[in-house]
Protein backbone atom coordinates (compact mmCIF):
# COMPACT_ATOMS: atom_id res chain seq x y z
CA UNK A 1 0.00 0.00 0.00
CA UNK A 2 1.33 3.40 -1.02
CA UNK A 3 2.06 5.80 1.83
CA UNK A 4 0.67 9.01 0.37
CA UNK A 5 2.05 11.34 3.05
CA UNK A 6 5.51 9.89 2.52
CA UNK A 7 5.20 10.25 -1.27
CA UNK A 8 4.10 13.88 -0.92
CA UNK A 9 7.00 14.64 1.45
CA UNK A 10 9.43 13.14 -1.04
CA UNK A 11 7.87 15.09 -3.93
CA UNK A 12 8.14 18.28 -1.91
CA UNK A 13 11.81 17.49 -1.30
CA UNK A 14 12.34 17.16 -5.07
CA UNK A 15 12.86 13.39 -5.11
CA UNK A 16 12.92 12.31 -8.76
CA UNK A 17 12.03 8.71 -7.93
CA UNK A 18 8.90 9.91 -6.16
CA UNK A 19 7.94 11.80 -9.33
CA UNK A 20 8.44 8.63 -11.40
CA UNK A 21 6.21 6.71 -8.97
CA UNK A 22 3.51 9.34 -9.35
CA UNK A 23 3.79 9.33 -13.13
CA UNK A 24 3.55 5.54 -13.26
CA UNK A 25 0.44 5.62 -11.10
CA UNK A 26 -1.45 8.50 -12.64
CA UNK A 27 -0.23 9.41 -16.11
CA UNK A 28 -2.58 7.02 -17.93
CA UNK A 29 -5.66 7.88 -15.81
CA UNK A 30 -4.95 11.61 -16.23
CA UNK A 31 -4.64 11.14 -19.97
CA UNK A 32 -7.93 9.26 -20.07
CA UNK A 33 -9.65 12.02 -18.13
CA UNK A 34 -8.06 14.84 -20.13
CA UNK A 35 -9.23 13.11 -23.33
CA UNK A 36 -12.83 13.62 -22.27
CA UNK A 37 -12.40 17.41 -22.45
CA UNK A 38 -10.28 18.01 -25.55
CA UNK A 39 -10.64 16.94 -29.18
CA UNK A 40 -7.50 14.88 -29.74
CA UNK A 41 -5.01 12.60 -28.08
CA UNK A 42 -2.23 15.07 -28.92
CA UNK A 43 -3.99 17.92 -27.11
CA UNK A 44 -4.72 15.61 -24.14
CA UNK A 45 -0.99 14.74 -23.97
CA UNK A 46 -0.17 18.46 -23.83
CA UNK A 47 -2.73 19.02 -21.09
CA UNK A 48 -1.29 16.19 -18.98
CA UNK A 49 2.28 17.37 -19.50
CA UNK A 50 1.17 20.82 -18.42
CA UNK A 51 -0.49 19.18 -15.42
CA UNK A 52 2.78 17.52 -14.38
CA UNK A 53 4.49 20.90 -14.54
CA UNK A 54 1.72 22.30 -12.34
CA UNK A 55 2.20 19.41 -9.91
CA UNK A 56 5.95 19.93 -9.66
CA UNK A 57 5.49 23.69 -9.17
CA UNK A 58 2.51 23.36 -6.84
CA UNK A 59 3.27 20.33 -4.65
CA UNK A 60 4.47 22.66 -1.88
CA UNK A 61 0.95 23.99 -1.60
CA UNK A 62 -0.62 20.50 -1.32
CA UNK A 63 -2.00 20.23 2.21
CA UNK A 64 -3.59 16.79 2.08
CA UNK A 65 -7.13 18.10 2.49
CA UNK A 66 -8.16 15.92 -0.45
CA UNK A 67 -6.49 12.75 -1.66
CA UNK A 68 -3.52 13.24 -3.96
CA UNK A 69 -5.55 11.63 -6.74
CA UNK A 70 -8.41 14.13 -6.35
CA UNK A 71 -5.90 16.99 -6.30
CA UNK A 72 -4.27 15.73 -9.52
CA UNK A 73 -7.65 15.25 -11.19
CA UNK A 74 -8.70 18.77 -10.25
CA UNK A 75 -5.54 20.21 -11.81
CA UNK A 76 -5.98 18.24 -15.02
CA UNK A 77 -9.67 19.20 -15.28
CA UNK A 78 -8.85 22.88 -14.80
CA UNK A 79 -6.11 22.81 -17.43
CA UNK A 80 -8.23 20.75 -19.82
CA UNK A 81 -11.14 23.17 -19.46
CA UNK A 82 -8.96 26.14 -20.31
CA UNK A 83 -7.67 24.29 -23.36
CA UNK A 84 -11.06 22.80 -24.19
CA UNK A 85 -12.59 26.24 -24.57
CA UNK A 86 -10.21 26.83 -27.45
CA UNK A 87 -10.45 23.33 -28.92
CA UNK A 88 -13.86 21.90 -28.38
CA UNK A 89 -14.70 18.29 -28.94
CA UNK A 90 -17.57 17.37 -31.21
CA UNK A 91 -19.92 15.25 -29.10
CA UNK A 92 -23.61 14.55 -28.90
CA UNK A 93 -25.61 16.89 -26.69
CA UNK A 94 -26.69 15.97 -23.19
CA UNK A 95 -30.46 16.44 -23.39
CA UNK A 96 -32.46 17.29 -20.30
CA UNK A 97 -35.22 14.83 -21.23
CA UNK A 98 -32.95 11.96 -22.25
CA UNK A 99 -34.58 8.67 -21.24
CA UNK A 100 -32.54 5.71 -19.98
CA UNK A 101 -34.27 3.47 -22.51
CA UNK A 102 -35.84 4.59 -25.82
CA UNK A 103 -39.56 5.24 -25.14
CA UNK A 104 -40.68 3.05 -28.05
CA UNK A 105 -39.57 0.02 -26.06
CA UNK A 106 -42.44 0.54 -23.60
CA UNK A 107 -46.16 0.08 -24.17
CA UNK A 108 -48.79 2.70 -23.41
CA UNK A 109 -48.99 1.51 -19.80
CA UNK A 110 -45.27 2.02 -19.31
CA UNK A 111 -44.44 -1.71 -19.26
CA UNK A 112 -41.79 -3.22 -21.49
CA UNK A 113 -42.97 -3.98 -25.03
CA UNK A 114 -39.42 -4.81 -26.11
CA UNK A 115 -37.77 -6.03 -22.89
CA UNK A 116 -34.01 -5.97 -22.34
CA UNK A 117 -32.34 -8.81 -24.17
CA UNK A 118 -30.96 -11.14 -21.49
CA UNK A 119 -27.18 -11.16 -21.25
CA UNK A 120 -25.30 -14.41 -20.89
CA UNK A 121 -23.79 -15.43 -17.56
CA UNK A 122 -20.28 -14.64 -18.76
CA UNK A 123 -21.25 -11.19 -20.11
CA UNK A 124 -18.92 -9.37 -17.76
CA UNK A 125 -15.94 -11.51 -18.72
CA UNK A 126 -16.74 -10.88 -22.36
CA UNK A 127 -16.82 -7.10 -21.82
CA UNK A 128 -13.53 -7.20 -19.97
CA UNK A 129 -11.86 -9.38 -22.59
CA UNK A 130 -9.43 -7.19 -24.45
CA UNK A 131 -11.32 -6.69 -27.67
CA UNK A 132 -14.54 -5.73 -25.95
CA UNK A 133 -12.67 -3.45 -23.55
CA UNK A 134 -11.47 -1.46 -26.55
CA UNK A 135 -15.08 -1.32 -27.74
CA UNK A 136 -16.24 -0.02 -24.36
CA UNK A 137 -13.67 2.76 -24.68
CA UNK A 138 -15.01 3.59 -28.14
CA UNK A 139 -18.58 3.59 -26.81
CA UNK A 140 -17.45 5.90 -24.05
CA UNK A 141 -16.24 8.34 -26.68
CA UNK A 142 -19.78 8.50 -28.06
CA UNK A 143 -21.21 9.78 -24.79
CA UNK A 144 -21.97 13.46 -24.37
CA UNK A 145 -19.01 15.18 -22.78
CA UNK A 146 -20.32 15.73 -19.26
CA UNK A 147 -21.73 12.21 -19.03
CA UNK A 148 -18.39 10.82 -20.12
CA UNK A 149 -16.48 12.86 -17.56
CA UNK A 150 -18.64 11.64 -14.71
CA UNK A 151 -18.59 8.00 -15.88
CA UNK A 152 -14.80 8.06 -16.29
CA UNK A 153 -14.26 9.43 -12.80
CA UNK A 154 -16.84 7.28 -11.04
CA UNK A 155 -16.67 3.97 -12.88
CA UNK A 156 -13.19 3.90 -14.44
CA UNK A 157 -11.29 5.65 -11.67
CA UNK A 158 -13.57 4.71 -8.79
CA UNK A 159 -13.70 8.20 -7.26
CA UNK A 160 -16.45 8.80 -4.68
CA UNK A 161 -19.42 10.92 -5.82
CA UNK A 162 -18.51 13.80 -3.49
CA UNK A 163 -15.03 14.13 -4.98
CA UNK A 164 -16.40 14.10 -8.53
CA UNK A 165 -18.80 16.91 -7.56
CA UNK A 166 -15.90 18.94 -6.15
CA UNK A 167 -13.69 18.39 -9.19
CA UNK A 168 -16.38 19.26 -11.73
CA UNK A 169 -18.13 21.87 -9.59
CA UNK A 170 -21.56 20.21 -9.89
CA UNK A 171 -24.25 19.21 -7.37
CA UNK A 172 -24.76 15.64 -6.13
CA UNK A 173 -28.12 15.49 -7.90
CA UNK A 174 -26.65 16.68 -11.18
CA UNK A 175 -23.80 14.20 -10.81
CA UNK A 176 -26.29 11.35 -10.42
CA UNK A 177 -28.30 12.43 -13.46
CA UNK A 178 -25.18 12.52 -15.65
CA UNK A 179 -23.98 9.19 -14.25
CA UNK A 180 -27.39 7.67 -14.89
CA UNK A 181 -27.58 8.86 -18.50
CA UNK A 182 -24.02 7.82 -19.23
CA UNK A 183 -24.39 4.35 -17.74
CA UNK A 184 -27.76 3.86 -19.44
CA UNK A 185 -26.32 4.76 -22.82
CA UNK A 186 -23.43 2.35 -22.32
CA UNK A 187 -25.80 -0.44 -21.35
CA UNK A 188 -27.85 0.22 -24.47
CA UNK A 189 -24.72 0.03 -26.62
CA UNK A 190 -23.56 -3.17 -24.93
CA UNK A 191 -26.99 -4.73 -25.27
CA UNK A 192 -26.56 -4.75 -29.03
CA UNK A 193 -23.40 -6.82 -28.65
CA UNK A 194 -24.13 -8.95 -25.62
CA UNK A 195 -27.81 -9.73 -25.91
CA UNK A 196 -28.30 -13.40 -26.70
CA UNK A 197 -31.27 -12.48 -28.91
Amino acid sequence: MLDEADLVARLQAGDEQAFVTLVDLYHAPLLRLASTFVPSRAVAEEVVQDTWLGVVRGIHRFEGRSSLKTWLFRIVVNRARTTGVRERRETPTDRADEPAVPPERFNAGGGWSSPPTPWSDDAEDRIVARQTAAKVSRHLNLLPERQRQVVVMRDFEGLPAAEVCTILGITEANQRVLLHRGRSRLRNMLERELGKA
Partner: protein
Amino acid sequence: MTTRREARARAREQIVCRQAVELVTDYLEGALTADERVRFEAHLADCPHCTEYLREMRITISALGRVEPGALTSGARADLVALYRSWQAG
Protein backbone atom coordinates in the same frame (compact mmCIF):
# COMPACT_ATOMS: atom_id res chain seq x y z
CA MET B 1 -60.98 -3.85 3.71
CA THR B 2 -59.67 -1.86 0.78
CA THR B 3 -61.77 0.89 -0.70
CA ARG B 4 -61.58 1.61 -4.41
CA ARG B 5 -60.14 4.99 -3.63
CA GLU B 6 -57.30 3.38 -1.65
CA ALA B 7 -56.70 0.86 -4.38
CA ARG B 8 -56.51 3.64 -6.96
CA ALA B 9 -54.08 5.59 -4.78
CA ARG B 10 -51.90 2.50 -4.46
CA ALA B 11 -52.01 1.87 -8.19
CA ARG B 12 -50.92 5.43 -8.79
CA GLU B 13 -47.95 4.86 -6.54
CA GLN B 14 -46.93 1.68 -8.30
CA ILE B 15 -43.92 2.02 -10.50
CA VAL B 16 -44.11 1.00 -14.15
CA CYS B 17 -41.07 -0.30 -16.06
CA ARG B 18 -40.47 2.98 -17.85
CA GLN B 19 -40.12 4.69 -14.47
CA ALA B 20 -38.15 1.85 -12.88
CA VAL B 21 -35.30 2.12 -15.41
CA GLU B 22 -34.92 5.81 -14.50
CA LEU B 23 -34.51 4.95 -10.81
CA VAL B 24 -31.72 2.41 -11.22
CA THR B 25 -28.80 4.79 -10.58
CA ASP B 26 -30.46 6.51 -7.63
CA TYR B 27 -31.18 3.03 -6.26
CA LEU B 28 -27.57 1.88 -6.66
CA GLU B 29 -26.30 5.19 -5.23
CA GLY B 30 -28.54 4.87 -2.18
CA ALA B 31 -30.28 8.10 -3.15
CA LEU B 32 -33.90 6.88 -3.10
CA THR B 33 -36.11 7.69 -0.14
CA ALA B 34 -37.13 4.69 1.97
CA ASP B 35 -40.58 4.82 0.39
CA GLU B 36 -39.24 4.97 -3.16
CA ARG B 37 -36.88 2.10 -2.46
CA VAL B 38 -39.70 -0.09 -1.19
CA ARG B 39 -41.77 0.60 -4.32
CA PHE B 40 -38.77 0.06 -6.60
CA GLU B 41 -37.96 -3.28 -4.97
CA ALA B 42 -41.62 -4.29 -5.06
CA HIS B 43 -41.61 -3.63 -8.79
CA LEU B 44 -38.44 -5.71 -9.26
CA ALA B 45 -39.99 -8.59 -7.34
CA ASP B 46 -42.80 -8.67 -9.90
CA CYS B 47 -40.87 -7.86 -13.05
CA PRO B 48 -38.22 -10.21 -14.47
CA HIS B 49 -37.41 -7.74 -17.28
CA CYS B 50 -36.52 -4.91 -14.91
CA THR B 51 -34.59 -7.38 -12.75
CA GLU B 52 -32.60 -8.32 -15.84
CA TYR B 53 -32.20 -4.63 -16.68
CA LEU B 54 -30.75 -3.93 -13.21
CA ARG B 55 -28.40 -6.91 -13.59
CA GLU B 56 -27.17 -5.54 -16.93
CA MET B 57 -26.56 -2.10 -15.41
CA ARG B 58 -24.54 -3.71 -12.62
CA ILE B 59 -22.50 -5.70 -15.16
CA THR B 60 -21.89 -2.55 -17.22
CA ILE B 61 -20.63 -0.64 -14.17
CA SER B 62 -18.49 -3.49 -12.91
CA ALA B 63 -16.95 -4.05 -16.35
CA LEU B 64 -16.11 -0.34 -16.66
CA GLY B 65 -14.10 -0.56 -13.44
CA ARG B 66 -12.03 -3.35 -14.93
CA VAL B 67 -10.99 -1.53 -18.11
CA GLU B 68 -7.30 -0.74 -17.64
CA PRO B 69 -6.17 2.75 -18.65
CA GLY B 70 -3.15 1.31 -20.46
CA ALA B 71 0.45 1.40 -19.33
CA LEU B 72 2.87 4.25 -19.76
CA THR B 73 5.56 3.42 -22.34
CA SER B 74 9.16 3.59 -21.17
CA GLY B 75 9.77 6.29 -23.81
CA ALA B 76 6.99 8.49 -22.44
CA ARG B 77 8.27 7.96 -18.91
CA ALA B 78 11.82 8.93 -19.96
CA ASP B 79 10.48 12.09 -21.66
CA LEU B 80 8.69 13.11 -18.49
CA VAL B 81 11.75 12.47 -16.34
CA ALA B 82 13.79 14.66 -18.71
CA LEU B 83 11.16 17.39 -18.38
CA TYR B 84 11.18 16.97 -14.60
CA ARG B 85 14.93 17.56 -14.55
CA SER B 86 14.58 20.70 -16.67
CA TRP B 87 11.79 22.00 -14.42
CA GLN B 88 13.89 21.33 -11.31
CA ALA B 89 16.88 23.06 -12.92
CA GLY B 90 14.72 26.00 -14.03
